[in-house]
């Protein structure tokens, strides 16, 4: 049998090199996408953890309190707790280099004398002895850089660098160089060590700590110690093992990672169709060969085995190549993912990650499993070929009869999909419900695939009849179009799969486009209501988030003095925890800005909410918060603040698309009192009527731009930036769309070629009774056009249903966000037209081939 495989399959591959290569590439592409996304997902899962592990050193427990930190006065309480052996306080944060575009440093401020017990810092040029350390500490402008960073910027010991601190640009002197060991390995060496007080000033965290790393006495129970320290802190900070802390923060990215997984599922689904299509064509092409084999005594199961093995051979080769391609692809994807994560979630270091055995297995199993699955039906069809096929001359092929077992299966799947989509098991969380929704959509598409032959049969019949009634118009290929319809109607299963592939591609395009359109429109509406300021000023980045540098309030007062500025407000965004899960705390001063701002309220009205917020009657929570924690207006939530636990009554629900973790919005003065934090992430400026915004921007930039690395955005620019950030996070989806379209077009070429091969005799007859080559070309092209039209129309319809479900339900399951649904009419029309045109182009080669079939051999010997 294996000899037969080698003899027949290898020859078939060689004879049809292009098709073999395309199928091979299809598998490579699918596997590469799966492996790359698996690597990216793993990198994302471990990214923050790696940083924490490296920085945490020997610490077994960490005291921290989100981004707001906690009061330094708590340090002795922690240090003096029974069982604590060593305690090392630290502050941390990113600061951009003033005057060096794109460079920033992860500043780690530690008590150098205490820190050695937790972390080993290795300095260049021998040990950093006590004298060295004391000298370093004595001078507040001291900074230690890694060798890599210093080399990159041409710095050495004694050089000066300027950092854009929360108090403006300040100069620091490089007093030591670090080897890239331990903590210094993070962020590709963009790591700097400073003495604690100096770092506190630079980061605007005077009198505060971000973390205290702890080791315990030998034999101490970690959990007991954790509870003991937490009890002494009374909610002013949290005590966690470093690993738990990483996991908590990383859960912020759940929806992003689930979204990526969704993309790899699409790649797999598309790969399935490609393989199915290719093997189906191969069966059609080799019917006579199979018939001859059957005549010669090859058993049905041997034929089945032959075709499955053929798929396996391609799958193994394709999967191995796909894994290698996936590793390369992952490097590019990591850059993209890193950019998105850094902009939206937190700063991570995603460089240099290779595949694990698990990912290699995922690639192999995905590629081979899907290939075999896709090969089963065509292989079974091959096994059903009778020995008569080898000498078949004039056996009638029945016209399709409409409803078949496949159609019934399709109907069942279509019926099951909404049940699954809206099934809500009691214990199911957002991710589980999202997954159910995705599976339901897959069933929906699969149902349509099974139904597609029936739809083709009906559709082609409808057009066949309609065209019969049309008068003959010179130049209009009515008869060719009719014959094309007839061909589709006759073997609807053949074109059904191609139409299904096209449908899936277009449905994917429409779904992504509708999602993007809905998110974009909803975001723009949200920005209009959430940010009403004429100008928004950030430091270090254009938006508030992991990239910007928080500044002192006093900087804002300088902006308020700029001519034309009428109202100034301070916005602060920090990460915190609620019920062990990360949330965002937002604050601004409703007292300062209620008369000029509004809020995108989901429940309650904005002026009343702002009034109550200003009066510190309670806090507003976002829609995602309500969905995640089941808390709504009137309920009370208890948050850990540096001043201890504080309770807030929920006075309204607002829409917040800036984070799906769930946000709590508090009056700034209240926030400042409880969190002891007066840093500002964004300054909102409202201008007086008639004031020139450009003049104000010029003034701010000229006076303070360099010192604070300012980004001053107008309302419009901010909106554009929000849209840009959103589109950046969708770029992987666009890539998958392109793959889906390429696969669909390849399927059309394949199907039409199969159709031409299958109808060789019929084409010969048509030529014999007077069909010109042009007419035949027209007929095959018309068939391609019909396929494009039907696939396109079905794709747009399926896309409308899928995108509505995805935007309105699935996204809400995953993120807690509600978006208004927008159908991308323009994209839909362009896709439909493109579908028909691309199919016509795809039909050209098969049409040419049909026209060149020699009549005599076609009618005489098939």
């Amino acid at each position, binding site marked *: 049998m294996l000899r037969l495989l080698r003899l027949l399959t290898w020859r078939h591959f060689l004879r049809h090199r292009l098709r073999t290569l395309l199928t091979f590439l299809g598998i490579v592409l699918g596997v590469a996408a799966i492996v790359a996304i698996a690597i990216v997902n793993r990198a994302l899962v471990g990214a923050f953890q790696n940083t924490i592990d490296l920085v945490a050193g020997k610490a077994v427990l960490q005291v921290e309190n989100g981004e707001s930190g906690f009061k330094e006065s708590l340090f002795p309480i922690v240090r003096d707790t029974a069982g604590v052996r060593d305690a090392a306080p630290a502050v941390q944060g990113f600061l951009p280099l003033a005057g060096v575009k794109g460079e920033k440093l992860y500043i780690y401020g530690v008590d150098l004398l205490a820190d050695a017990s937790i972390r080993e810092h290795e300095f260049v040029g021998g040990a950093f002895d006590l004298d060295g350390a004391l000298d370093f500490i004595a001078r507040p402008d001291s900074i230690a850089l890694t060798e890599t960073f210093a080399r990159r910027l041409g710095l050495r010991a004694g050089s000066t660098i300027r950092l854009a601190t929360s108090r403006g640009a300040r100069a620091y002197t490089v007093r030591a160089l670090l080897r890239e060991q331990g903590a210094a390995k993070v962020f590709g060496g963009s790591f700097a060590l400073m003495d604690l007080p100096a770092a506190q000033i630079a980061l605007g965290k005077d009198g505060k700590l971000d973390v205290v790393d702890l080791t315990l006495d030998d034999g101490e129970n970690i959990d007991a110690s954790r509870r003991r320290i937490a009890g002494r802190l009374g909610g002013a900070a949290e005590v966690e093992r470093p690993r738990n802390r990483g996991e908590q923060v990383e859960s912020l990215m759940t929806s992003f990672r689930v979204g990526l997984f969704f993309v790899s599922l699409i790649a797999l689904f598309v790969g399935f169709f490609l393989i199915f299509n290719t093997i189906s064509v191969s069966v059609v092409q080799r019917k006579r060969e199979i018939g001859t084999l059957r005549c010669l005594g090859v058993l049905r199961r041997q034929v089945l085995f032959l075709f499955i093995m053929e798929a396996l051979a391609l799958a193994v080769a394709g999967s191995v190549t796909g894994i290698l391609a996936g590793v390369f692809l992952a490097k590019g994807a990591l850059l993209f993912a890193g950019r998105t994560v850094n902009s939206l979630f937190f700063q991570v270091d995603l460089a240099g990650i290779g595949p694990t055995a698990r990912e290699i297995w995922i690639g192999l199993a995905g590629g081979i499993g899907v290939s075999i699955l896709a090969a089963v039906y065509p292989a079974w069809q091959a096994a059903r070929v009778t020995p008569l096929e080898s000498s078949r001359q004039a056996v*009638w092929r*029945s016209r399709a009869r409409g409803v078949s077992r496949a159609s019934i299966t399709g109907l069942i799947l279509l019926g099951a999909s909404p049940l699954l989509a809206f099934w809500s098991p009691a214990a199911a969380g957002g991710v589980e419900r999202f997954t159910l929704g995705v599976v339901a959509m897959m069933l929906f598409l699969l149902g349509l695939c099974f139904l597609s032959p029936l739809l083709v049969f009906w559709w082609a019949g409808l057009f066949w009849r309609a065209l019969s009634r049309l008068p003959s118009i010179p130049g209009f290929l009515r008869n060719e179009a009719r014959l094309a319809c007839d061909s589709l109607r006759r073997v609807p299963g053949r074109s059904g799969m191609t139409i299904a592939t096209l449908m899936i591609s277009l449905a994917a395009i429409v779904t992504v486009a509708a999602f993007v359109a809905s998110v974009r429109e909803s975001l723009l509406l949200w920005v209009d209501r959430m940010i009403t300021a004429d100008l928004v000023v950030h430091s270090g980045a254009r938006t508030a988030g992991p990239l910007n540098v928080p500044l002192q309030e006093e900087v804002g007062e300088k902006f308020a003095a700029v001519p034309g500025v009428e109202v100034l407000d301070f916005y602060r965004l920090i990460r915190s925890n609620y019920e062990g899960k990360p949330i965002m705390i937002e604050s601004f001063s409703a007292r300062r800005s209620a008369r000029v701002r509004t809020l995108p309220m989901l429940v309650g009205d904005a002026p009343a909410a702002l009034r109550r917020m200003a009066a510190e009657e309670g806090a507003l929570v976002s829609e995602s918060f309500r969905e995640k924690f089941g808390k709504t207006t009137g309920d009370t939530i208890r948050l850990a603040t540096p001043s201890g636990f504080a309770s807030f009554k929920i006075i309204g629900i607002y829409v917040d698309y800036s984070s799906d973790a769930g946000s709590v919005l508090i009056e700034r003065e209240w926030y400042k009192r409880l969190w002891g934090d007066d840093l500002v992430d964004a300054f909102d400026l409202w201008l007086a009527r008639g004031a020139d915004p450009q003049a104000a921007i010029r003034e701010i930039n000229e006076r303070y731009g360099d010192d604070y690395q300012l980004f001053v955005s107008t309302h419009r620019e901010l909106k554009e930036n929000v849209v840009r950030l959103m589109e950046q996070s969708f770029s992987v989806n666009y890539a998958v769309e392109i793959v889906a379209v390429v696969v669909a077009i390849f399927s059309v070429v394949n199907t039409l070629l199969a159709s031409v091969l299958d109808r060789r005799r019929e084409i010969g007859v048509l030529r014999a009774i007077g*069909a*010109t080559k042009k007419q035949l070309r027209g007929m095959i092209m018309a068939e391609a056009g019909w396929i494009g039209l039907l696939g396109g129309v079905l794709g747009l319809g399926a896309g409308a249903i899928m995108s509505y479900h995805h935007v309105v339900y699935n996204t809400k399951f995953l993120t807690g966000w509600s978006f208004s649904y927008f159908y991308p009419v323009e994209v839909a029309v362009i896709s439909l037209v493109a579908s028909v045109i691309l199919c016509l182009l795809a039909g050209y080669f098969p049409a040419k081939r049909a026209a060149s079939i020699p009549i005599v051999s076609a*009618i005489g010997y098939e």
Partner: protein
Amino acid sequence: MIRLIDVHKTFKQGASDVVALDGVSLHIAAGEFVAVMGPSGSGKSTLLHLVGGLDRPSRGDVMVDGKIISQMEDDQVTLFRRARVGFVFQFFNLLPTLNAIENTALPLMLDGRSESEARARAEGLLERVGLSARKNHLPEALSGGEIQRLAIARALVFKPPILLADEPTGNLDSKTGAAILATIREINRSEHCTVVMVTHDREAAATADRVIRLKDGLLDEGRG
């Protein structure tokens, strides 16, 4: 009506050449019914294909109805064939999903004729071959004889002056075959249509006015 002048036809088969016709010259007059006989591989079907413009000679000329079709462009010869030559094949070669009337009307459709004209002409022909009661049936629902009569009806749809038949009774039982031959003969007489029929069957050949014999690609003059 039909004239072959020193016609050669050679096929490539791997590295070697296979000679199907090796310098055949003949003349068939208008309205004549000629049977072409010969053993397998003698070149009978090749001759028929050349006369019908389905294939081109390697050398020599084929003149049909006053035109040298062997020198025509593909489209020209196709249009000529559509209007001037009717084909009847051993394996019928009907389109399986078209019913009798649609199969018959197909050449007219390819010619861009109106639906009503094509149907009227097809119905008339089906009546003539005795299939008017079966006009809405698919080929698979017809008997062998009916299928071949349907093929004849299609061949006649343009009232061609030439009817070419390749083993028209080869796939039929003797009784049905005889009926088909009678139909062809009747058309030959009533329409004054030139018929060239390739056959293995001596009895079928006896229906013709003249029998041409081929052997190894040459006219078998001794027996002609």
